[in-house]
């Protein structure tokens, strides 16, 4: 069974040097957090703290004395868990009276971090510019024709901004921007390898209507706490979105972009292609 690429927060315990990746979907967090704390008892016996890695986008948001952090600190302290920041500001150092208390603290922080990240504005995105001069000219001409057929010009994308989006990011602190910028520099060689050092040619064409995806019902904190973290989390409930677009009531219309030689290199570089019924509207820019 192949899982979709999850987003992670890193949780590390003092007992091991390897960070644990905790998936940030709330239902999956409980299970993963349990795995982390399962190794914690030895650390607890030695009086070693548990380290919670602060996601890059929350560094500076969760900081000593920050309002967002004091909201988190109070419930921790009420359970006898002490929490302080590592000197580099990248981890929260947790010490608790029991394994269960630390485990609960990690769950609280993991869940809160996920929620906080969801609220932050999207600032950046990973894009593949489709800006070959000939393509831009052809697209401009195509758009003139479409406008002549009654499509309102203000809903048309500017040809100079024609692109494929690979992902969206929320980089609200200078540290997060720096981390993402550095990552771009380090993945260059790997991208070359994945493309086998050959040009990546794509075919652009085939007009399609973007349809909505089904939304996962979000678990709340109370639901999560009730869940037995060791059990497989239940499948998320699916609720259809309102106002499903139809050709005559469209919101997003796009051209397909497919690899020209069918070698699979393009997909290996960008991401798994998913069936059309799973198309997600929020990736449309």
């Amino acid at each position: 069974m192949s899982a979709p690429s999850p987003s992670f927060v890193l949780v590390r315990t003092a007992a091991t040097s390897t960070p644990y990746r905790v998936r940030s979907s709330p239902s999956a967090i409980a299970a993963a957090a349990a795995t982390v704390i399962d190794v914690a008892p030895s650390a607890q016996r030695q009086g070693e703290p548990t380290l919670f890695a602060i996601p890059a986008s929350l560094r500076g948001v969760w900081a000593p004395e920050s309002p967002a952090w004091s909201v988190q600190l109070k419930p921790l302290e009420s359970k006898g868990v002490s929490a302080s920041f590592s000197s580099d500001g990248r981890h929260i150092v947790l010490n608790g009276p029991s394994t269960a208390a630390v485990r609960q603290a990690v769950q609280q922080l993991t869940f809160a971090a996920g929620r906080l990240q969801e609220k932050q504005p999207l600032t950046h995105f990973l894009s593949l510019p489709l800006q070959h001069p000939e393509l831009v000219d052809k697209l401009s001409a195509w758009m003139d024709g479409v406008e002549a057929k009654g499509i309102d010009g203000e809903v048309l994308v500017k040809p100079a901004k024609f692109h494929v989006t690979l992902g969206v990011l929320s980089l609200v602190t200078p540290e997060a921007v720096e981390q993402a910028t550095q990552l771009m520099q380090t993945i260059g060689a790997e991208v070359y390898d994945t493309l086998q050092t050959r040009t990546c040619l794509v075919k652009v064409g085939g007009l399609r209507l973007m349809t909505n995806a089904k939304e996962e019902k979000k678990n709340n904190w109370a639901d999560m706490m009730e869940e037995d973290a060791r059990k497989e989390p239940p499948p998320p409930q699916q609720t259809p979105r309102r106002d499903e677009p139809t050709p005559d009531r469209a919101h997003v219309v796009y051209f397909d972009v497919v690899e020209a030689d069918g070698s699979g290199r393009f997909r290996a570089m960008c991401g798994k292609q998913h069936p059309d019924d799973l198309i997600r509207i929020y990736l449309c820019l």
Partner: protein
Amino acid sequence: MSVDLVRKRFAEQGLLREADRPLKIHATVINTSHRKHRGQGRLPVDASEILQLYASHQFGTYRLESVHLSKFSGPTDLSGYYGHEALVHLP
């Protein structure tokens, strides 16, 4: 060989939003969120004619030149494309 390399690397560092949601590779040409005057909700467009007309329309084959870490806002680059923090040139 790693599948979905770029997204994977960003997700690993907790930098990718919506990372566990599927990606559909596409190039948007119409988006009603670009409307300047937003009333109650987004006003849809009737695209039924053009969807039929251009279902097989091809623009041709083009080389991908780079991956950008693009900015949603702020000044565009000289060509009018989104400004960027960093970019990776492709072979």
